[in-house]
């Protein structure tokens, strides 16, 4: 495969020229290219330039990732060894740390629409880590969920049954029977 360049255009008119192999990380692009027609420019309606640039930054870094269901005819890339994987994981962590939560949510929507699997997993995991210690009240605020439980249903049924889930992880003192 020649190192073709493809231009991706965002909904607000920003254009990004990338190597074909990077563009193919976006499954939506990969499917378009599969039909063997020569496409040089692809408009992406649902993604702003701001978000698209972040997505492409991720794709450039992960261009060598081995994908199990990769049906392309390119020679199978060597599986990254443990150290390389650790470096990638560290890069991913740093990458997410520098992005605010609002942008991460937009990235999730973009990764979902553009179908960039690794990025979807990474962003979802970041949000999961963000909400995992939050109270149900806080999560309702975040996702705008209405609480339709009555007090009995909430207290009796769920809190009691799963009391272990509501215990805080505190330091344990010397035990007494």
């Amino acid at each position, binding site marked *: 495969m020649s190192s073709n360049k493809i231009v991706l255009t965002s909904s607000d008119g920003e254009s990004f020229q990338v190597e074909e192999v990077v563009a193919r990380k976006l499954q939506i692009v990969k499917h378009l290219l599969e039909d063997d027609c020569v496409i040089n420019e692809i408009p992406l309606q649902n993604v702003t330039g701001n978000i698209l640039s972040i997505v492409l930054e991720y794709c450039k870094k992960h261009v060598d990732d081995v994908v199990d269901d990769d049906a392309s005819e390119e020679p199978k890339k060597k599986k990254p060894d443990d150290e390389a994987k650790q470096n990638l994981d560290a890069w991913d962590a740093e990458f997410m740390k520098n992005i605010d939560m609002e942008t991460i949510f937009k990235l999730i929507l973009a990764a979902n629409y553009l179908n960039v699997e690794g990025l979807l997993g990474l962003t979802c995991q970041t949000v999961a880590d963000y909400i995992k210690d939050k109270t*149900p009240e806080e999560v309702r605020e*975040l996702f705008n969920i209405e609480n339709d439980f009555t007090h009995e249903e909430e207290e009796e049924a769920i809190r009691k049954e799963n009391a272990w889930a509501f215990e805080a992880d505190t330091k344990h003192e010397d035990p*007494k029977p």
Partner: protein
Amino acid sequence: MTTSQFKKSKLIENNSQSLEILKEKNFNDVPLDVAIEIFMRLPVKSVARFLLLSKFWAEIIRSRHFITSFQVRSSLQPRLLVVFIDLNKQWNCEDWYFFSLSSSTTSSLSRVTCPFPDYVHYSHYVNGLISLGSGLEKVITNPSTGKSTVLGRVQTNSKVAKCFLGYDPVNDEYKLLVLCMKEKMQRHDGRTRILQLSSQHQVFPLGVKKKPWRMIDYTTPHGPVLNSVCIDGVLYYVAFTGEDLSQLSLMRFDLGSEKLDLFTSLPADFPAAFLHGFTLMRYKGKVALATKTLFIGIEVWVLDQQAEIHGCLKKSFSIIGGKWLFCDLFITGTTHTSEFILAPRFYSNRFYVIYYNPDTESLRKTKVEVHGGYDFKHRETKAMVFSGLCRDCSVVVGDTVSCFGNKD
């Protein structure tokens, strides 16, 4: 609102004002399948708490689809159960601290107090439940949730009993095989031996279906040693058998039919003198006895429980590298990818778990980092490591017997 203000709102995470800001920006635009992707990556505790979000969300979380996907995800990240046992002499009880170890992180799971201290500690972790306590009085715990059940004292005249916990996947039942022991003096060649042999064989089913404990048909006394291993609904353990209890054999107890029998004898060249350095475990689906050898290696005796001819194969592995680590390590079991797990037997602040892959002859290690001011860190605290820790999802569904049950 400018970008820099949003960056700040992420940094002051617990500031409720920031939540107000975030709320205005319509996070509910996230489609349902994506929200589910997020929830599937949460720890069990969080998922159980979020049953409270709304009736709709409770339904989603309890749905077969969610639970199956959740289980599949967690099985992709194999984790180990690390246990630290702190003996409290003053109160004559033990504190069992459970931690989960993934490839890089240690997280605290729960803590359980066991009122029956047991100094030998052959504990069994089977399909999500672990047995604590000395032979006659047992506590069954789910380490993920910390919920326990104390079983009634075994009815017997014996003072000592050996118990093996097993899980029957066909009937979705946990059972305890209880071997009540007695001592017998034996004179042999002018020397006296004290034999420990089983006098009563009982089975104790656990769970909702309150079946009573009962005696099983097998009555031949034998001397069980070491731990047991449960493979596909069958419990295996090693015992001294025969008239004078001198023949080492592998015993087999089928949890479904509750039939106990002598499966096969161990080969004559098995080093019985070093028996107590061995651990019974599952190796590539087969029953195996493994030990660490003197010159930094692993010796495994594999018994194929499914083979027509009951043979025993001995394999030896030499571990290259990591010599300095090796001294305090012992084999505790295998991972589902057939790596050997080696871990220390006591807590220290340099507690490493080593994974040895015999096929690729490679080693990797993970440090167990226990954060927090636990008292057990300053004492000689026993440690145990088990493989097969799964995120127990059925507790989320709110089963009545939420202590048990790890439905597939």
